[in-house]
């Protein structure tokens, strides 16, 4: 009897094998290029890459602009996501769909579209002039391509907030703002932080829209991805080492964001326990 069960288990395991294999295959496909990148550069080359004249200005610019664009997205995207999550009308559905548009549009097309809107001959030119080739352009490109990732995640997070919870908060005398900040945001926090990390990562890697809309000028509009491309035109080895620098920075930040998320979740849980008692 046990033998039969065992063989059935074994058969089940064998049947699952192809599926598991597919999963592992995908994982390998995702990780292998990164490993190849890491193996292609010696630590010495990596160190030299850090000293490459293009790297520090580009890294500084990337960190500065992505921090700003993330800030813009958080401040403007959170209320937008809240409204989308809480509204039932068809207008809200339309907004929800259009917010996600930049995810499916190729970044280069977004770059051209931004050129047409914010360029010298764009509809806004009489008031703001041309933003092309400026740091504003870098920022706008990052916000447009990255914001959907945050808003999408935040909407999902806010949808998971129990209506009753908010209702209870309101009956206990909380204003709607208090209910949002002290009930909805903490409940949706993992989704908000996850979305923010993804949004930041997308902004950091942004290339196509920036290249077309902001151009590429060292210290002004040349972010890390553009610097990598520019060095690739000259020397592949330098480009790989520079890419590795970006990879390390991104990895470090994502790990930190994850740790922060866990810490927040834990402290929220313990705070919730305190209230319960």
């Amino acid at each position: 009897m046990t033998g039969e069960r065992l063989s059935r288990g074994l058969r089940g395991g064998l049947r699952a094998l192809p599926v598991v294999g597919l999963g592992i295959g995908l994982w390998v496909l995702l990780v292998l290029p990164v490993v190849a990148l890491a193996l292609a550069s010696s630590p010495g080359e990596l160190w030299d890459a850090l000293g490459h004249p293009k790297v520090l200005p580009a890294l500084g610019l990337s960190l500065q602009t992505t921090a700003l664009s993330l800030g813009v997205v958080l401040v403007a995207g959170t209320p937008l996501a809240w409204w989308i999550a809480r509204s039932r009308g068809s207008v809200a559905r339309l907004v929800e769909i259009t917010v996600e548009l930049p995810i499916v549009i190729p970044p280069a097309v977004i770059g051209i579209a931004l050129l047409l809107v914010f360029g010298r001959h764009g509809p806004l030119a009489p008031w703001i002039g041309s933003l092309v080739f400026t740091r504003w352009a870098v920022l706008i490109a990052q916000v447009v391509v990255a914001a959907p990732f945050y808003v999408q995640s935040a909407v999902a997070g806010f949808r998971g907030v129990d209506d009753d919870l908010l209702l209870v908060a309101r009956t206990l005398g909380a204003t709607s703002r208090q209910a949002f900040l002290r009930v909805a945001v903490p409940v949706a926090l993992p989704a908000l932080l996850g979305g923010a990390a993804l949004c930041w990562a997308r902004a950091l890697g942004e290339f196509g829209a920036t290249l077309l809309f902001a151009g590429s000028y060292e210290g002004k509009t040349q972010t890390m991805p553009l610097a990598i491309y520019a060095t690739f035109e000259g020397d592949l080895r330098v480009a790989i080492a520079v890419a590795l620098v970006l990879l390390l920075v991104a990895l470090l930040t994502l790990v930190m964001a994850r740790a922060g998320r866990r810490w927040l979740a834990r402290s929220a849980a313990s705070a919730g326990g305190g209230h319960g008692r």
Partner: protein
Amino acid sequence: MMSERLQRFAAGRRLARRRRRGGLLALVGLLGAGACGDRSQTVLTVLAASSLTDAFGVLERRFEGEHPGTDVVMIHAGSQVLRVQLEHGAPGDVFASANAEHMQAVMAAGRVAQEHPFARGGLALVVPPDNPAGIESLEQLPRASRVVLGVPEVPVGRYTQALLEQADRYYNNHSGLQGGGLQGGSLQGGSFRAQVQERVVSLEPNVRLVLAKVELGEADAAIVYRSDVTSARAVTMIPIPASLDVAAEYHVGILVDSEHPHVARQWVELLGSSPGQAVLQEHGFVSLDDR
């Protein structure tokens, strides 16, 4: 005016996209052909510098007309991109590079055994049709408030730097002799080259991107290959004095592992033939014997 500019720009984009899509389809076709074994059509894959896009497009139609059953597939990218791809084993039959250096690298990697130059390309100054900075000669380039050039790591950027250096030497010695530009105290801000550098707002990785910035009116002036300024482009070309122009030498070679070396040789022969050279000249290239 904007809508017209937009339309022309969009038309150019569409064309490029169609070409690219064609390339992709052909690539898929290639994969399919590889998987199914034999296929009646011979596919000749030509990897060519992006500045050759328009001229090779015309030659492709001609070649396919003369060789029924042959499908020429163009893969266009910056020469340095193609070079890296070839060094890493990209398949193909013919490689056409915008300079000798990248061809040498591909030969060093053992992918090409023999090569030769087949054309030269000069540089051109381009401005938007409304020419907001009122530039009429290279010497007046410092009048532009926004100049866009190729990044020095790509051939066009390197040639541009060489051109600016030559022009710098020439104009600083002859200022005043050339009516216009540097007269009226415009040399105050330093040498010709320094003034131009000051006005550079972007160094782009390829000529098409540089041109797009001028077409959209975002740059007042740019320096590109003459061969890129076709009639479809919404820009005005201003000739560069022949004495200052630096020419890019285009090289072609057959890949050693080409599956159709015979057809590949016919393509290379077409480039050197007088009809081939005529097409190249129509697209702003200079025939080798003209110099």
